[in-house]
């Protein structure tokens, strides 16, 4: 990515504190301006509006006004408690003030003559002055239109309010409804008066899976990242955006080698894996992917490195028993604190939630090497697009930690073939190891080859290997067989080199 530094004055922005959004928006919301946040029902508009104020209080003590037209303050206080925001505390500290414009249930309202929204404006001005607010959220505009008959009047009054907020130098956010995920920006034409900045929140059903994204549609006079970015809502933290293309390829790469946990494999790779590289191990079920993972972790722990395993296919008991069978005692390693094994069902959460949790665990445990077995198990819970974003986001995150990451991918067919995971991830990986079955003379044999090793020479042989109580043992190359990787092994007569 190229960074271009313009030399004309930029519109100042204030960081919202909403993880990921500040990156997507190149610095936050335009200061002193009004931004429209538009979305369908259930697209997390209110959470976004509350979080904008909450982060302002938490990060810099900025006081904020919350104008509610829909839910009562009591409902909002209760609803956001699980997200980790105790509004009552902030209200007592004079950092948070509600302007309650929510309708009372069952109360009639008759219109008899000309009116304007001067009372709302007076209340907002009073509230801003009272606590010295610099941030304001208004939720939601659709509910204002529902309270009054004259939509044109409401529009022009909202325009007047946003102009006054600008004079008061209050950075504000207004939410509004849309009826379709891909259609007009907002109902009642509200985007026309706050058209400077528009953020769209989406909650799309794709292949029976919910996918939340945010997109900055307009940011007049200032830069931002384009396109839709996935986000999720995490209890205790609120909205978390996953900025994908906003990430920069800044990771360092080192020439330090680390062991794969297997001397023969190290030799094939020209002396081991690179310390901050991503290694993909691909093969059909039962070819030895979990074994390579086990040796990778054991090899690291033996050198005193901290190792982290995310397992999505097998339970702890299975993993520990398997490791035992190959001469690695995971129990002891966990007790020593060098190994951490995290097992989860792919279906237990959405991919975005898995990603956030994995990042949290990585940040907390601070491992030197990370293994994911298997990556392809996670394909089940996402759309191809969502999965690709997940892969890119996780690999880039791991690379930024400057640790080694080893992922496994299961190929769907026993003989040869590639997996979806592979096609998504192969260009992001530094090394690819293929494991394959070879059917020869009425028996199934296993072979291994190092397909790619970025920045290093490696052995190009296809080696047969055996598995016993001591782990994996690489043997002789299949010199007289061709077509292994294509899934169609054929013996060639001795003396004729197989090319």
């Amino acid at each position, binding site marked *: 990515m190229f960074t271009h530094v313009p030399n004309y004055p930029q519109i100042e922005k204030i960081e919202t504190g909403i993880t990921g959004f500040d990156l997507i928006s190149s610095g936050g919301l335009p200061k002193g301006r009004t931004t429209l946040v538009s979305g369908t029902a259930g697209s997390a508009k209110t959470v976004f509006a509350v979080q904008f104020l909450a982060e302002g209080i938490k990060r810099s003590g900025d006081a904020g006004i919350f104008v509610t037209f829909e839910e009562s303050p009591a409902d909002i206080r209760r609803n956001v408690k699980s997200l980790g925001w105790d509004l009552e505390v902030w209200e007592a500290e004079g950092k948070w003030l509600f302007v309650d414009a929510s309708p009372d249930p069952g109360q009639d309202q008759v*219109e008899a003559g000309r*009116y304007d929204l001067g009372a709302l404006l007076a209340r907002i001005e009073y509230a801003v002055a009272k606590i010295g607010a610099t941030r304001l959220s208004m939720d939601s505009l659709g509910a204002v239109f529902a309270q009054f008959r004259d939509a044109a009047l409401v529009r022009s009054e909202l325009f007047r309010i946003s102009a006054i907020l600008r004079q008061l130098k209050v950075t504000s956010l207004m939410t509004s409804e849309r009826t379709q995920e891909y259609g007009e920006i907002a109902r009642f034409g509200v985007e026309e008066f706050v058209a400077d900045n528009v953020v769209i929140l989406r909650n799309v059903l794709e292949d029976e899976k919910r996918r939340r994204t945010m997109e900055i549609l307009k940011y007049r006079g200032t830069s931002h990242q384009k396109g839709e970015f996935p986000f999720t809502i995490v209890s205790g933290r609120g909205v978390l955006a996953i900025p994908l293309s906003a990430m920069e390829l800044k990771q360092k790469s080192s020439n330090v080698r680390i062991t794969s946990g297997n001397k023969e494999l190290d030799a094939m790779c020209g002396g081991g894996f690179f310390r901050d590289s991503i290694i993909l191990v691909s093969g059909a079920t039962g070819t030895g992917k979990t074994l390579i993972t086990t040796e990778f972790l054991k090899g690291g722990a033996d050198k005193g490195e901290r190792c982290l395993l995310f397992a999505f296919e097998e339970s702890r008991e299975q993993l520990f028993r398997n490791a035992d069978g190959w001469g690695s005692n995971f129990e002891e390693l966990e007790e020593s604190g060098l190994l951490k094994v995290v097992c989860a069902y792919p279906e237990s959460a959405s991919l975005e939630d898995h990603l956030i949790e994995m990042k949290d665990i990585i940040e907390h445990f601070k491992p030197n090497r990370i293994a994911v077995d298997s990556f392809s198990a996670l394909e089940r819970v996402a759309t191809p697009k969502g999965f690709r974003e997940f892969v890119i986001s996780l690999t880039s995150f791991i690379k930024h930690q400057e640790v080694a990451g080893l992922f496994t991918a299961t190929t769907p067919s026993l003989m040869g073939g590639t997996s979806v995971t592979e096609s998504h991830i192969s260009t992001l990986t530094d090394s690819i190891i293929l494991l394959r079955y070879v059917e020869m003379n009425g028996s199934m044999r296993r072979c291994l080859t190092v397909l790619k090793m970025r920045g290093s020479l490696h052995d190009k042989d296809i080696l047969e290997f055996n598995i016993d109580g001591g782990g994996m043992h690489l043997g002789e190359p299949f010199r007289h067989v061709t077509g292994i990787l294509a899934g169609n092994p054929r013996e060639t007569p001795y003396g004729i080199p197989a090319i």
Partner: protein
Amino acid sequence: MNKTNTVVAADEKPHAEWVLRLYIAGQTPKSLAAISNLHRICEEHLAGRYDVEVIDLLERPQLAEGDKIIAVPTLVRKLPAPLRKIIGDLSDTEKALVGLQLKPLLG
């Protein structure tokens, strides 16, 4: 009975059957129209039985919070219960009377 443009607290007149509160924002033409329209309606329909408090939100914005006032002018019928709100300068007498339930809504 009471002049509509003077502020009289409701509790000074404990026997008034009708307690009304009119919210305005400054002495705008709409505010003045609302005050005079309300005075006329009250004298015609509620003479001797009402109490009106006028609140200017430019002077006392904090008072809008309790009745959750957004639009001005807004007339709030505090008594008799239940509470009702009539928005606008009351130039539409028919609607104002319907809002105050001084006249049934005609089909």
